[in-house]
């Protein structure tokens, strides 16, 4: 009993206590049921977790900054017309009148960069919303009803996802003219499958949880099961997937632009600007660097935020 030695009161030790308190006390078992901690919901808890993640917050700040600039930026430095040319003033380095300089036909790079960011973000967010709508519905139905329906729906989505999107895109862009809607359509045509897989696997997981069984034994309708029980539990995951889908669409759009499958001139997007800038990279590196920096900042920020969100929603982190 080595370890105990310094810690016990032996028969010969005396211990000073208020002896009048050595009487039985009334019982207060109800008191032990009281919960003293603050009432926290899932969302609050997730926000607190996210706030502790400095990188994710930095990402969030950058994203908000770029979004704001993509909305108001074009109006801050001269006219908001991204197509306005000023051939006399072409290929200027960044200066007091044209903050980001001008391109080879004298269009303001400041205006074009923020307008381009706006278009890139618009495409990415729209694609994400389409993925969300189709993927959630499709994956939800497939996972929730299960059985033969699930098997058939899974085979269909496998076929769709096995179509190489680049081939499909090239075909589409040959048939239709490249435009914002065509690009959105072409990208989201296959990309919703990923979202539907996430939703399906989540639904399959929660479907067997006892709280779902409990709701079923109480007679809950399918609508109630889906909207009251399943969706609130899956929504955190969905936000994470969306936060990773946005940067990958932005990247894909730039990639297309680089291949010459991008938006028609004079519409700018970050990809178009980079592709244009690349042509005069050696003489005027700012034409490439500035849009590339914005693109990189967006990509990194979204990825940092996505990682942060994933950790914040993960109950294991508590």
């Amino acid at each position, binding site marked *: 009993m080595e370890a105990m030695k310094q810690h016990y009161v032996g028969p010969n030790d005396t211990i000073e206590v208020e002896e009048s308190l050595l009487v039985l006390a009334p019982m207060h078992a*109800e008191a032990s*049921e*009281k*919960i003293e*901690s603050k*009432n*926290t*919901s*899932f969302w609050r808890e997730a926000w607190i977790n996210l706030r502790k993640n400095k990188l994710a917050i930095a990402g969030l700040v950058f994203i908000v900054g770029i979004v704001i600039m993509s909305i108001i930026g074009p109006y801050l430095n001269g006219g908001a017309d991204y197509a306005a040319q000023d051939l006399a003033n072409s290929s200027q380095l960044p200066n007091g009148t044209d903050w980001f300089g001008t391109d080879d036909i004298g269009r303001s790079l400041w205006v074009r960069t923020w307008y381009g960011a706006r278009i890139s973000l618009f495409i990415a967010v729209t694609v994400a919303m389409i993925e969300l709508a189709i993927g959630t519905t499709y994956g939800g139905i497939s996972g929730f009803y299960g059985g033969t329906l699930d098997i058939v729906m899974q085979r269909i989505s496998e076929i769709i996802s096995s179509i190489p999107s680049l081939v499909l895109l090239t075909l589409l862009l040959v048939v239709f003219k490249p435009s914002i809607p065509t690009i959105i359509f072409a990208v989201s045509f296959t990309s919703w499958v990923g979202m539907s897989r996430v939703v399906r696997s989540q639904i399959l997981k929660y479907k067997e*949880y*006892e*709280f779902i*069984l*409990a*709701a*079923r*034994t*109480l*007679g*809950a*309708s399918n609508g*109630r099961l889906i909207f*009251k*029980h399943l969706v*609130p*539990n899956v929504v955190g995951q969905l936000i994470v997937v969306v936060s990773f889908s946005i940067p990958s669409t932005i990247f894909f759009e730039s990639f297309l632009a680089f291949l010459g499958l991008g938006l028609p001139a004079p519409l700018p997007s970050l990809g178009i600007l980079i592709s244009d800038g690349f042509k005069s990279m050696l003489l005027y590196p700012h034409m490439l660097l500035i849009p590339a920096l914005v693109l990189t900042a967006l990509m990194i920020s979204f990825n940092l935020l996505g990682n942060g969100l994933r950790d914040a929603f993960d*109950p294991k982190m508590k």
Partner: protein
Amino acid sequence: MAKEKLVEVKNLKQHFKVGGGRVVKAVDDVSFDIYKGEVFGLVGESGSGKSTTGRSIIRLYDITGGEVKFDGQVISGKIKGDLKRTLTREIQMIFQDPYACLNPRMKVVDIIAEGLDIHKLAKNKQERLEKVYKILEIVGLTPDHANRFPHEFSGGQRQRIGIARALITQPKFIIADEPISALDVSIQAQVVNLMQKLQKEFGLTYLFIAHDLSMVKYISDRVGVMYHGKLVELADADELYAHPLHPYTKSLLSAIPEPDPIYERNRQRIPYTADVHDYSQEGPEWVEIRPGHFIRANKAELVAYEKQLADKK
């Protein structure tokens, strides 16, 4: 004493298809009755089919064969919508896992009131809240708890919330599927006592499914023992524990740990394998060997069991 049957399970079969065209007979030809106001215990090891039996009765699974009656009406297979609605009010379930049985995104008040909302049992918000508060008090919690989320509660408290949810529709029959196996010993007694109190107060009938034989013996009036999808023995709780006949029941009883070191040192465990039965000549049947004491045995075994009973008495 004329006992009224509340639940009648006849030749219940629940077979699941698994990969490769194989079929798992989770529940295979099981028959028993549950009387009004009693606690019917169902014990067995994991995979014995005891939980599947419970879930089949409450229609979480579509049964493969047999029939289930509740209050004299057939409730298995295709039934009318009206009856379905009545059943979801009158039969309720308490689950095993206090962590998985409550929706983590819902507040306690909404979890408990779910039955009220689905069956529109509360006229207005005020009444809904009052009912929830009342039931919280019955299970030993307070109105303060209503606005909190499940993750803030201890395992025992969560289990009581689960019980409150089951009680709010004023059911007649509650299937408790291993309600205490995931709880600590000190909390198990609390939950079992609460269930007994509720049974008296509301005249409930329980199907109590568990693998803990000592707790089942304590709470149940009658106990059925399941092994590999089949019911092997059924008797009054005291009778079953005093005069177990089936070798599997004996084996189970001999394995229960008792909080008594001397008893434990001298314990003789009785192993069981299905090889002890010789069913090559004659298959077993479900027989009532004594009034109320059923056993799965063939004729030769019955003779031996009869002898055992005679010797003991």
